[in-house]
């Protein structure tokens, strides 16, 4: 009897939770690295917009345990057995996800990779930010702010993170074009969390009391540096350019503690990811590499509609 009760409850639960979609519609699986960050919600919103325009369904599913490579492999495998029409994937690891993607491609399910690159050539296209260009834009902004001279430091993000390494490379190449600027430090790492970045930034600021400019290549490093600058009262005095947006960083941009934020366009990444997958399905030729663009937010332009949308994306109800 109890068994029966459990069975009934189970069936009810599943029926209630399962998405009710018409079987005739094509389903595109969109697989992020995780589901809780703002960044992924913007990608989801973009994917949903593309789906609404083209009349397909989006199956949005991240790894149940975030940042777990094996869990993401399972989601890709299950999408293949589910026979989705195509997969849009932000791979957690450029090597570990290559095998399941190759297997999906062998099963005639095209895969479009977004956000971070993947090894091999089984995927149809790579839709992402041009990170080197983003780094170069940051160098341009900082160099201009400093009038082409001064002492600058860069707090790196983490060893082995491909996207931020490209930003760092782009920044260093860009800053080299200003002969009057000296890099006082570019070999320190912020680490994975904002907490670790805060500590690293405090130590750096302690070491360099005379400083004119700072660049940080991602959200957590930028936030950690901002906290460190504020805690020693040097916020606003040092020209500071960061990468990515959050409510806190946008606020600091407004108060003049941050002088520039390089912004990616995750909404566009989700949107173009789905559109590109559909183009592959329809047999249209697609570019191997699609740039989703970067923009520089400054205290002056942050209220213009384009930048404001990137700084503080208005997400539709269904992805919150």
């Amino acid at each position, binding site marked *: 009897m109890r*068994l029966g009760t459990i069975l009934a409850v189970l069936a009810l*639960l*599943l029926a209630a939770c399962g998405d009710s979609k018409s079987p005739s519609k094509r389903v595109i699986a969109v697989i992020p690295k995780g589901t809780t960050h703002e960044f992924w919600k913007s990608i989801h919103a973009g994917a949903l917009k593309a789906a609404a325009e083209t009349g397909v369904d989006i199956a949005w599913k991240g790894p*149940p345990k975030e940042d777990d*490579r094996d869990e993401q492999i399972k989601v890709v495998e299950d999408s293949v057995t589910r*026979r989705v029409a195509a997969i849009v994937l932000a791979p957690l690891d450029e*090597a*570990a996800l290559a*095998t399941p993607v190759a297997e999906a491609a062998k099963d005639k399910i095209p895969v479009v990779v977004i956000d971070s690159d993947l090894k091999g050539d089984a995927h149809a296209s790579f839709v992402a930010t041009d990170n080197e260009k983003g780094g170069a834009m940051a160098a341009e902004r900082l160099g201009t702010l400093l009038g082409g001279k001064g002492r600058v430091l860069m707090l790196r993000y983490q060893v082995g993170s491909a996207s931020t390494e490209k930003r760092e490379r782009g920044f260093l190449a860009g800053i080299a074009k200003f002969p009057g600027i000296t890099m006082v430090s570019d070999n320190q790492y912020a680490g994975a969390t904002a907490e670790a970045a805060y500590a690293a930034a405090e130590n750096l600021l302690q070491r360099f009391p005379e400083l004119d400019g700072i660049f940080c290549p991602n959200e957590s490093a930028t936030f950690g540096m901002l906290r460190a600058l504020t805690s020693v009262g040097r916020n606003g005095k040092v020209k500071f350019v960061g990468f990515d947006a959050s409510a806190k960083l946008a606020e600091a941009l407004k108060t003049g503690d941050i002088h520039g934020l390089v912004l990616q366009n995750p909404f566009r990444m989700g949107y173009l990811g789905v559109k590109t997958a559909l183009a592959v399905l329809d047999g249209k030729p697609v570019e191997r590499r699609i740039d989703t663009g970067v923009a520089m937010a400054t205290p002056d332009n942050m209220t213009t509609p384009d930048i404001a949308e990137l700084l503080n994306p208005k997400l539709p109800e269904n992805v919150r």
Partner: protein
Amino acid sequence: MTDSNAVRLVRRLGPFLGLALVLVLFTALEPDRFPTAVNFRTVLTQTVIVGLGAVGMTFVVVSGGIDLSVGSSIALSTIVIARLLRDGASPAAAALAGVVAGGVVGVVNGTLITRLRIAPFIVTLGTLQIVRGTAKYLAGEQKIDAPASWLAGLMSKSPDPSWLVVAPGVWALILLAAFLALVLRRSILGVHTYAIGSNEPTAVLCGIKVDRTKVLIYGLSGLMTGLAGLMQFSRLTVGDPTAATGLELNIIAAVVIGGASLSGGVGGIAGSLVGALVMAFLANGCTLVGVPNYAQEILVGAIIVAVVALDRSKRGA
């Protein structure tokens, strides 16, 4: 007499009924996609890592112990294998070293538990951190890329040669589970394991070398964990110091769903395997049906509690 036999039968069959339930349920909900050969092959492959861990963990749990360090140990194995491959070792040697690394962690656990007389929960809570830290140290706090080798084929869903039908890893799990089920039921080690788990003081009085047996049990379980680490490496093709975080809880859940008692003396390999299959089919089925992650987690948790509650009621306690 007959009544206790009936209770015993239900206890033995309980996990199988649970598995059948899950299979029937998802077949009804997703008749086109769930009960297919491709999907079953996929789920079997996904079960291998937790399954190997659960087979080893069954010995530990039946002996009245627990091992929380298995997730970290799996990560350590992937690092050992990836590093050796990167430094030019042969795939077979690297794989062996990965399995042995797991065995070493197990022997260390067993030795600490018996020498220091500290509860297994506490000892392995400590080694969970120590082993994870060691893995990160050996990896230089990043994942290690290894050159391609045949090890990646161990968990391939399209195995080579194709007459294997399922991945070599699945066969390894089946054969080892069968062998260790015999060991647990028929060998001296198995009998002693049940004796220690049922009543340790009595086991001592009966002349069983409890400490030595415990080290053996944790060592054996460690070897299985090392093998799970090899399969994890095969799946990821990289050494990942953060791999399998929290996996020990899935493994323990599989053993518990399989009918083992955490107070020791009760449990079996077949049940634990079925427990692992239940969890894998649940996760797979939920994804196919489109159940969101949070609902899936709530569901698995509810099932663990429900299964144990059901078990209690059958025992009439």
